[in-house]
């Protein structure tokens, strides 16, 4: 590694280990300095290749820096800083250690220039983030964490297998466009691993399962890193893969449908992560310069506003201890600041003009239009209405207004409000000055978001979505239920499978297979063995036993012949000759 290049991810991963050495105010200072330094390193970085190693003949690149990796590194380190401010009141050093390692792993993925170093950071993402779930230390969180870890380890195995195939076929580990290997085993396995981390259905249920179970502060980090680093590698390796266009558009609506049914605040928001990442996956599939810019810009904006939304929901959870919409209501009276900051995030995700989502999401939708994809454009616009419906209307209505639950909660700790303020400022700044973001995108941007028809049709869409919401309000009351998702297959499906294994399959084994075994194998074998034993005892034994007396009696006869007298021998010889002579006479 060259001295003039320091890996910002490594700085966070290694730097996190000094935290337990400090206490109190000093620890908080170190906590803030680490992500701030990482952000500084990313901002100072210039495109190039750094940190190359040759290990066992493999070329490992830890610092592949280009415009794409740079823009992702900015937002990853920025949100690491904002998230750390939000978590500043947390006394447990192990939580900070996990979050900084997690952020460092995301930066590691961003700068990885080869598949092997990508794999290492990919696994570190899974391992460090599961700690954020477990650290809530509730039985439901521990169970959800195990499910989360198992799913990600399976994804990691797919990636490793894909990398092994790719390496054995091409002899290269370089991370780059996979289009020329489309349809092959390596291409398929690596794509599955990436889609799993991007939470693309049916591989995405881990997200809505685990995120609401994480700690209040940990969930903020989780919304940023895993899915967006997957979007990043999808842009790098699978741009223009047509399958992704449809998967992404379906995903955008899938998240919205589940959000209608959801009662847990953070799970509702988690389903909207799936929906929003759908726009990015779809844009990666479209693959034009506008689309890839859109995917990148939307990832950037999304990380900030989604973190803000999770911070808002987390603040309510932190002060009230309640996570279900059906148990909230009327909080605007005592938490007006939290409400206002949450609404900035809600307007940003809903793509209200002058907020960040408007300038990023519309790039993706326009890319679909530019490529003449009518159904995709309609699906994405429908999902936009759904986003506003839930995040901008339903959730704040039932959380802050609605039926007064009697909760008289206070505003959360000041560091939480400051972090939310930082994210809110970022959402508005990007929305008002889109060129700040556009200037950092991987391709040159000619796109202009603020045109009169675009602004007017967006306002119309949002206003009449609101009308639909208030007209159907009575049907939207949150219900204390949970919804089946594809996690059913490993939560219930696996149990059903085990019941089949233990019950019918075991009976089948003992009853049928066992009987057949008895009939076909055991009986004939035992029968044959019995015959052999009889043969052994009757024939072989009596032969062996018979040989002794036979020899004995024969030798008794012989003994009489061996008398030692010459005349006996002469007599026997004469008798023999006579017998021989008689035989010869008889035959001739």
């Amino acid at each position, binding site marked *: 590694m060259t001295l003039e290049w320091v890996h910002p991810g490594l700085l966070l991963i290694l730097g996190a280990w000094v935290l337990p050495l400090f206490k109190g105010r000093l620890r908080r200072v170190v906590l803030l300095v680490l992500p701030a330094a990482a952000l500084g390193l990313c901002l100072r970085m210039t495109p190039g290749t750094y940190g190359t190693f040759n290990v066992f003949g493999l070329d490992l690149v830890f610092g592949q820096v280009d415009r794409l990796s740079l823009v992702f590194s900015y937002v990853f380190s920025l949100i690491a800083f904002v998230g750390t401010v939000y978590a500043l009141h947390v006394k447990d050093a192990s939580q900070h250690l996990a979050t900084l390692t997690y952020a460092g792993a995301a930066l590691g993925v961003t700068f990885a220039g080869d598949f092997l170093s990508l794999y290492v950071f990919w696994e570190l993402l899974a391992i460090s983030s599961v700690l954020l779930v477990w650290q809530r230390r509730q039985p439901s969180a521990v169970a959800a964490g195990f499910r989360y870890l198992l799913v990600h380890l399976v994804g990691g195995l797919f990636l490793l297998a894909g990398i092994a195939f790719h390496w054995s076929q091409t002899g290269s580990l370089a991370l780059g466009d996979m289009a020329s290997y489309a349809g092959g085993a390596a291409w398929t396995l690596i794509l599955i691993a990436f889609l799993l981390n991007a939470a693309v259905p049916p591989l995405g249920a881990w997200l809505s399962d685990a995120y609401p179970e994480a700690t209040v502060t940990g969930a903020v980090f989780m919304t940023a890193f895993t899915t967006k680093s997957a979007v990043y590698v999808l842009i790098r390796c699978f741009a223009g893969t047509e399958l992704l266009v449809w998967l992404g558009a379906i995903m955008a609506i899938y998240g919205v449908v589940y959000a209608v049914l959801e009662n847990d605040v953070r799970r509702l928001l988690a389903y909207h992560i799936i929906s929003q990442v759908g726009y990015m996956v779809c844009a990666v599939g479209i693959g034009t310069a506008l689309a890839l810019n859109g995917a990148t810009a939307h990832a950037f904006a999304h990380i900030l506003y989604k973190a803000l939304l999770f911070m808002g929901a987390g603040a309510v959870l932190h002060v009230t201890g309640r996570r279900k919409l059906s148990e909230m209501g009327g909080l605007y009276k005592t938490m007006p600041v939290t409400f206002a900051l949450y609404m900035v995030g809600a307007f940003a995700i809903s793509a209200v003009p002058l907020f960040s989502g408007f300038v990023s999401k519309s790039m993706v939708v326009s890319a679909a*239009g530019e490529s003449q994809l009518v159904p995709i*454009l309609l699906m994405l616009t429908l999902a936009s209405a759904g986003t506003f419906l839930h995040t901008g209307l339903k959730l704040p209505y039932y959380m802050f207004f609605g039926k007064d639950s009697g909760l008289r909660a206070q505003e959360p700790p000041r560091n939480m409000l400051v972090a939310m303020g930082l994210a809110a400022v970022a959402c508005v700044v990007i929305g008002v000055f889109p060129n700040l973001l556009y200037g950092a995108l991987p391709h040159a941007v000619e796109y202009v978001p603020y045109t009169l028809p675009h602004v007017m049709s967006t*306002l119309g869409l949002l206003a009449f979505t609101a*009308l639909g919401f208030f007209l159907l309000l009575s049907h939207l009351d949150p219900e*204390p239920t*949970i*919804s089946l*998702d594809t996690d059913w297959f490993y939560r*219930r499906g696996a149990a059903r499978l085990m019941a089949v294994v233990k019950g019918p399959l075991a009976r089948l084994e003992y009853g049928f297979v066992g009987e057949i075994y008895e009939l076909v194998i055991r009986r004939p074998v035992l029968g044959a063995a019995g015959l052999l034993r009889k043969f052994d005892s009757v024939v072989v034994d009596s032969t062996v036993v018979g040989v002794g007396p036979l020899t004995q009696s024969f030798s008794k006869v012989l003994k009489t012949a061996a008398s030692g007298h010459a005349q006996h021998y002469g007599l026997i010889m004469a008798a023999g000759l006579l017998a021989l002579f008689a035989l010869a006479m008889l035959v001739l």
Partner: protein
Amino acid sequence: MNFLERQLEDPVRLARMKRWSYVVLALVALAEIVLPHLFPGGHHYFSFESLPAWGSFYGLVSCVAIIVVSKFLGKAWLMRREDHYDA
């Protein structure tokens, strides 16, 4: 008592706010029809996008469709008791 509380807790003010909301809705739809004709510019990818008040229409349709279809799926299939996985 903050500003929002004064607006929402008073039935007279709340009713007045509702009336104004409908006025705003009508204005938004009207503006979407009229303004692009007064200030031409920007462009559409498809012809349906230049239908009068397309955004407003599609917003309302989308919102209703999402709620109706999702609730149907939920009631018919997806929604379960909260202890579904605990048993």
